[in-house]
């Protein structure tokens, strides 16, 4: 890797010099200097090294190959098609027609609610607030709007100072 002195001497706005970029991506001290020359260096500093997926390359390759093999097995195990495309279309059309007819017939019948459902509808929902007030400087509080007046009010609190098992 080139020295900090060489880096600063060769630094130009929008540079694509590989050595300069490599230095930028490894040297914290030069990053500030680079941003003064070209603000885009701020984000260019992220690139560079090729990253390794979580779990490592071997595990990753193993997973991919396992998926490829299982797909191969699946496609090999599929039974050959019995029906031609035209026949499949005809069957699909028949099924669609049968379903639509069934729907039309069932929509014309009067709908009667079961007794238990009617009782449940009449019963008012009773809920207690879990937290009534919350005060914290570091919290982000998000309120989920209720659709109806009697709906439960849901409020989400994001606060890193809260214990994890609360």
């Amino acid at each position, binding site marked *: 890797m080139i020295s900090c002195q060489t880096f600063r001497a060769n630094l130009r706005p929008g540079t*694509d010099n*590989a050595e300069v*970029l490599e230095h930028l991506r490894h040297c*914290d001290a030069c*990053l*500030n200097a680079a*941003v*003064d*020359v*070209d*603000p*885009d260096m*701020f*984000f*260019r*500093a*992220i*690139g*560079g*090294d*090729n*990253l*390794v*997926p*979580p*779990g490592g*390359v071997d595990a*990753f*390759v193993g*997973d*991919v*190959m396992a*998926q*490829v*093999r299982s*797909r191969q097995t699946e496609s090999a195990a599929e039974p050959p098609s019995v029906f031609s495309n035209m026949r499949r279309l005809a069957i699909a059309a028949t099924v669609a027609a049968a379903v639509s007819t069934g729907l039309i017939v069932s929509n014309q019948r009067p709908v009667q609610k079961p007794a238990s459902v009617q009782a449940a509808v009449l019963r008012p929902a009773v809920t207690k607030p879990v937290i009534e007030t919350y005060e914290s*400087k*570091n*919290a*982000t*509080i*998000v*309120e*989920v*709007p209720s659709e109806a007046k009697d709906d439960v009010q849901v*409020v*989400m609190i*994001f606060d890193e100072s809260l214990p994890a098992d609360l």
Partner: protein
Amino acid sequence: MIPTKDNLEPDDRQLVETIRRGDESAFEQLVRRKTSKVYSLCYRIIGNAEDSKDISQLVFIKLWENLEKYDPRYAFDTWLYRLVTNVAIDFLRNRQSRDNAVNSNLRLVKTAADAEQPVTVQRKEVETVFNEVSSVLSPKQKTIFVMSEMDDLRSSEIARILGCRESTVRNHLFNARKLMQQQLKKRFPEYSRLWEESR
């Protein structure tokens, strides 16, 4: 030892030819060779390790299923990058619409107090800042910005990968920078001053 034809690593095109003849181990070799490259690009576009891993695996599955479509007259990496960007852009679009659906039902009541920070660039924070400010970019803008600024690809190469004009790439880049500077000013004023001082 003088390298002979036998002990030389096959190049990408030769590997693809071997895979097309049904050699599964050649595919494994290709996956191993390209894993870091594919994962790095996915990670920089998506910004999340686990999602990037899943998307990278999906890229290789699609590669396996579509290898017949690769035309060896063109560079293999260009074709691979196109596959990566297509899958990553689709993922971002789906995630955006999912996030929009959730956020449309939420109302921000109070945000955490802004911490006062010194105006020095801290390397570890750059990635966090990038993930935050780049969230306003369209999936295509973000992909182009990543390929240009972090993968150091030229506009002509990006245009070839995405199958668009070079001027389109430059327009997307210009708009991406503008949007990100606006976001930086809004969300990270301490870093935004670095831009203003140097312009």
